[in-house]
């Protein structure tokens, strides 16, 4: 590994896969992934609620795992695959989790919502939550000050049930 000393305004080039597309950017080493998305790439769907890893508003999927993007330096994302809320829908076709959030009224102001949805999508993939209580526990990194929690859990349960149905159909 070669070490390099950086001048304060030195930038480093990285390539990431962002919502399925390759993106090349020069980043300041102090730039977080969250600020890269919001300020430099104009993807403001990912929200800043604390910038300290305490609220989950900035949740994105990095190589399929849910992460707080405010705790990641952009420069460390070279070669990673990142999905944000803008990358969940297929064209006009909303992701099932997005549809379930609307159907269950799982938000009010909508500010925590992109983070909740990314987190919920990953939660379903993780497959660790098998009850309401486990969903609640495993969604507790995402604060909703509007207090939409029960509806968020309802939405996630709907999507899980839908998926179980699909698996059953596929198995039959």
């Amino acid at each position, binding site marked *: 590994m070669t070490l390099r000393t950086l001048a*304060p*305004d030195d930038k480093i080039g990285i390539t990431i896969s962002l919502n399925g597309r390759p993106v090349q950017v020069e980043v*300041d080493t*102090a*730039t977080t992934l969250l*600020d890269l998305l919001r*300020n430099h790439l*104009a*993807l*403001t*769907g*990912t*929200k*800043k*609620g*604390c*910038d*300290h890893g*305490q*609220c989950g*508003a900035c949740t994105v999927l990095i190589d399929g795992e849910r992460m707080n993007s405010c705790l990641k330096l952009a420069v460390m994302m070279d070669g990673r695959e990142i999905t944000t*809320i*803008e990358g*969940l*829908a297929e064209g006009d076709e*909303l992701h099932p989790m*997005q549809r379930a*959030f*609307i*159907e269950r*009224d799982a*938000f*009010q*102001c*909508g*500010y*925590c*919502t*992109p983070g909740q*949805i990314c987190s919920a999508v990953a939660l379903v993939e993780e497959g660790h939550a098998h009850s*309401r*209580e486990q*969903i*609640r*526990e495993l*969604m*507790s*990194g*995402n*604060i*909703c*000050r*509007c*207090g*939409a*929690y*029960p*509806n*968020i*859990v309802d939405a996630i349960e709907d999507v899980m049930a839908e998926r179980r149905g699909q698996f059953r159909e596929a198995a039959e």
Partner: protein
Amino acid sequence: MLSNDPHVGSPRSRVDGPAKVTGRASYAAEFKATGLTHGYILSSAIPRGRIRAFDLAAALAVPGVLQIFTHENRPQTAWFASSYRDQVAPPGKPLRPLYDAEIQHSDQPIALVVASTFEAARDAASLIGVTYERAPHETDLERARHDSYEPPKKRSGIAPPPDPKGDATAAFGGAPIKVSAEYSLATEHHNPMELHGTTVVWESGGKITVHDKTQGTLNTQGYVTSVFGLSSDDVRVVSPFVGGGFGSALRPHHQLFLAVMASLVLERSVRVEMTRTQMFSHVHRPQTINTVAISADPDGHILSLQHNAVAATSRYEDYQENVVNWSGMLYHSEATQLGYELAKLDIPTPGDMRAPGAPTGLFALESAMDELAHATGIDPIELRLRNYTERDENDDKPLTSKELRACYAEGAARFGWSRRKMTPRSMRAGKELVGWGMASGVWEAMMMKSSARATLGRDGRLEIACAASDIGTGTYTILSQIGADALGLELDAVTVKLGDSSLPMAPIQGGSWTAASSGSAVTLTCRSLCETLLKHAKAVEGSPLTEAAIEDVAFNGGMIRLRREPDRAVSITDALAAAGLDQIEAEETASPGLIAPMRRASYTHSAVFAEVHVDEQLDIVRVTRVVSAIAAGRILNPKTARSQIIGGVVWGIGMALHEETMTDHRFGRFMNSNLGEYHVPVNADIDGIEVIFVEEHDDKVNPIGVKGLGEIGVVGTAAAIANAIHHATGKRIRSLPITVDKLLAA
């Protein structure tokens, strides 16, 4: 054919849902602008004193830094503090950011770094050296309460306590049963998920478009024009989405001032966003100490009721809210004495936070009522029914409606209250103690003057426009529903535009009055649109409607039909085409009646039932069930309405168990100004919330019979939980939040 389901009163998904779940909805700090610069605020490290000197050299040397604003180099702004007063300002002199060297509270903004990138601005701000001259400070309400005073100037819209009725002290002295105690509430911060931010877009010709996190675009506009001496033509405020307000975005905050100031000086677009810690540098729910004394006869009839409160405020403004008046509204008492005083601290001015004053005062009153129930051995609901009043006893006025009895009955039935054992510590589930508690809630049903514009196109599409904000309450949706019903359209044929100061006037979004105010305005506007439409429909050749009056027709499925013979109709398209018009427009204003409110008072009510489980060894409390039964007049959208009440209940749970901004009085600073240490409820804390809307018909409160839902959900919840904790453990905790240490020590 005339019977398509009305949208109003039916559950409908939010019309702004797709924008919010895809990330397309833009909040204040997300608007784009060419050449956008970024401001970062530096906050004071001391609570009181003066800035002696700044050392800016290192900060200015950071590449990308454009300018650092301090009180020493800020541009000239309005001279008088009164120019900084906004629509909701309490009496006093508002903080003027960067005005002079004086520090009035910790984390007061003292400098703004503007740079070409956010990273550079943040870095530079950390390099600014500040020399302070400290002055003695006081942040402890327990000490300052001894110098409390009655606010000499009343805040507009906040009724001071009524004159005493009877001789409460004497009645208390001679009464057979008495309860008397002190109940306190910690400082709380709103902490909406969206940080307070402003993007000022510098337009050609020196005009600015301001995207501000605000519950009132017109309030922001008024503040900016008044402070910077601009005309309202030069300042347009556009804030279509607000990431939570809860009252925190009623008044303009310093990031707005700083962003506009920098933009005007640099002649560039500027964004300034607070950090989460800086979110604790302004408005909050004031720490308040209540003293309540109630006496009763052995049957539980109240003989006297005294409720006095001392609340914290800043040195520079007398923030006031209604803490004690509720005690004169809920129950009948022959002798009542209510009092409200303030005590000055070196803190930022407190402000309205979801149901300002009500949960603070009702925690005290409803805890005391529970103590009275315990002392008399009367069931808590029965005790409340024995003291029920049909009037507002403060002003001795009748009410437009009050279905609180139905709230008690339906809430109790759903909760299973009849199975409650009276004695504390008598119910268990495994190793846990179980407690059931209840409380009442009350909030004002208000209406403000509001206008709206409606435009109907030949294609049958309706656009409704109003300056009001939707802070997540569902305003876009309910206004769409009202408009769709008025013209008989599908919901997706209606577009609602909000949050723009260039649209017809609306009040700030607060006080739970938006549905009543802007909803009434849209109703009137659509009515007038229908009249115009009918006029054009009559002029169509061979029109079957020539003799029809407005009452004789129905608007339905893009047609204007005769009610008696629905097949005889004219389409919207034909009516406008015949008139040679592409669209028709109406604009109307709805004002609260002048006479009615003087004769009758209007309130929403609730009965809240809570179940807690308490670990007997560790005293850890979990709220396992809440039933909130609400009487709030007509419910426009049961789906979004339920969400609003659930949100309020979640706030009540936070107030009861978690929320507390702690101060280190040695330094006069908040200690836990972040979301890791200021605890708000998370998903794991919340389950089993049920909402009931009881039938309440009210044709006097306002033209559409709604009372508002934003606040009532939080009001009685903390008290119900505190009462449940007493029922579970036998421990009466009289200071919120009820944390483990307080229970262990009791």
